[in-house]
């Protein structure tokens, strides 16, 4: 995967082509010879195609702030996974028991609006209490268990009507 950087808001592909004292890098398909002489972590000289530029750099998490030749650049690395897009969790609003157990607490009522990931039930099984979270955002349409009641694996505990179904 070619590394992508967001430089002052625009996406660029930057590909290292040779390691060593001098580096050749390809920027959006154009090759440049580049060398860096770092004075310390924050300052140094950048040599691009024979021209020397003094630079200052500061890093904040994944973003670099660079002063170079009187200009300011904000450089962010584009995560390969972000660029690839994430797969969404599949599945519907049916909340089924992951294992046999007993209901310890119910946090929601039929008709409640819930956010995805919101705790809905507390179950206990094998000496362990587990919170069961809403699989999707929406409205609680059914609760099939009561506190103290037991259930088998895969039993439908709570159903959530997904928000997108309500507001097409």
């Amino acid at each position, binding site marked *: 995967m070619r590394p992508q950087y967001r430089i002052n808001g625009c996406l660029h592909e930057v590909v290292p082509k040779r390691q060593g004292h001098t580096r050749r890098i390809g920027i959006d398909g154009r090759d440049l010879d580049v060398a860096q002489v770092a004075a310390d972590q924050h300052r140094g000289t950048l040599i691009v195609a024979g021209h020397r530029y003094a630079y200052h750099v500061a890093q904040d998490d994944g973003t670099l702030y660079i002063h170079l030749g009187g200009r300011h650049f904000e450089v962010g690395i584009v*995560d390969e996974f972000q660029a690839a897009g994430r797969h969404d969790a599949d599945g519907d609003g049916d909340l089924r028991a992951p*294992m*046999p157990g007993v209901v310890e607490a119910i946090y929601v009522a039929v008709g409640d609006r819930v956010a995805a*990931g919101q705790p809905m039930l507390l179950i206990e099984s*094998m*000496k*362990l*209490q*587990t*919170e069961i979270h809403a699989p999707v955002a929406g409205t609680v349409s059914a609760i099939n268990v009561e506190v103290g009641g037991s259930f088998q694996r895969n039993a439908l505990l709570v159903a959530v009507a997904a928000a997108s179904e309500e507001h097409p």
Partner: protein
Amino acid sequence: MRRIESGLNTNSALYKRYREHNLAMMADFHQRQDNARHHRPERDISRLRNQNKMLPRERLELLLDPGTPFLELSSLAAGEAYGGAAPGASCITGIGVVAGREVLINASDSSVKGGAWYPLTVKKIVRALDIAIDNRLPVIHLCDSAGGFLPLQSHLFGDKYMAGRIFRNQSQLSKLGCQQLSLVFGHCTAGGAYIPALSDYSVIVAGTGAVFLGGPPLVKAATGEDVSVDELGGARMHTSVSGTCDYYAASEREAIALGREIVMQWAQPPKFALQRETPEEPYYDPDELYGIIPDTTKAGFDMREVIARMVDGSRLAEYQPDYGTTLVCGFANLWGYKVGIIGNNGVLFNDSSLKAAHFMELCNQNRVPLIFLQNITGYMVGKEYEQQGITKHGAKMIMVQACSEVPKFTVMTNGSFGAGNYGMCGRAFDARYLFSWPNSQISVMGSEQAANTLATVKIDQLRRTGEAPDPEQIEAIRQAVLADYENQTSAYYSSSELWDDGILDPVATRNALGIAISTSLNTPFGEPRYGVLRL
């Protein structure tokens, strides 16, 4: 590698409740540790001072390279035994740096009963030398012990893993090429005399140091010979006549300086070339661990939140994220070292057991050390799971784990119950190091379950004899079992009994594991090889 996205809400009531609970627990833990290390009756301290001896930790302070870490092992050993008479089991063991070399320290604590060996002292020394054998560490013995604690001699002498094992382990270490140095500060009598004698190098302090199989009173009783300590086993005699010790030291300080000079001559074998990156602090603050660990073993927590506060950059390359989700497996770097992490996120099911087995195979194949983060209430029970082979899947996990050739490291983060303890590399499975958090608990089943099981057994017994079960009697049995469990499941009990290598403050775990992994690289990891897996 992607950074774990923490879902922790540090403003939530639950976070605050856990944090308050855990900070109180940590204060208690540090108090206990401080007492075990430093709290001694004035008379014991002045006795040592009058003999012109340093306190054991003062000797360590001089011996270890300044500014380097010392990973003390089992600081609370024997803490719950002998009515508290032997804090730290009257010895100090740990991994430190001397003259730039990683070494294992075995120091008598003469400020406790003259450094007498209790049964748990022997267990602690044997375990320390096991660590040296497993990790090919050189050893420095700081000898100043009154010898075996005679009232309990039957619990420390005759059996395979008792006192003789110390000398067996010393011999094995030597055979493996691990150097040993003894600094003789006090008397080494009877068995204790073999510690310097089995070392490659020894230094003995004039006046206070002595080495002999039997002291003057015993010699007098056995043969009628009248002899002084110095004639029988003093520094001058052993370094110029018998050759039992190598260097004469006029003072403890000189002995330590000589010791450092000796260690400086030792070869430093190259480390195994485990994949390494430049170390990086975790992105998420390890201090937040106090708000993640629950105040009960019943409540679950996401082990990823713990991993995120332990590994470099909080980054984890998770393996099979959508399969067997009650177990988190993945690759990470810790202090730069590549590691494979296996952490519990719930009960072990058929799929999570298979995932664990497969992931451990990957780590063995790629020579990546394994870290087990235990929080396990057991393998799932019930008809459906048995029919799907939960027992044989668990057996595969245990087999691959037990036969793993890569170094294993275990941390007890919360609960450790039943067979889950086995599968997740409990004490019996030879983790190079096993550490516990103060909140952690170990038992064959939960206390409630054990109490109820025993109560049921009692009811059945009574019914067989035709008696009607008396509810009060049943409740009394339940309460008795619960009380016993309360004590014996606690981390303080486990650590007292040497079921672990010490209790760690959770925020210290990353550094402890870093040192532990470093020591494990003194010998190459072996080829993967397993027994018969029931497929």
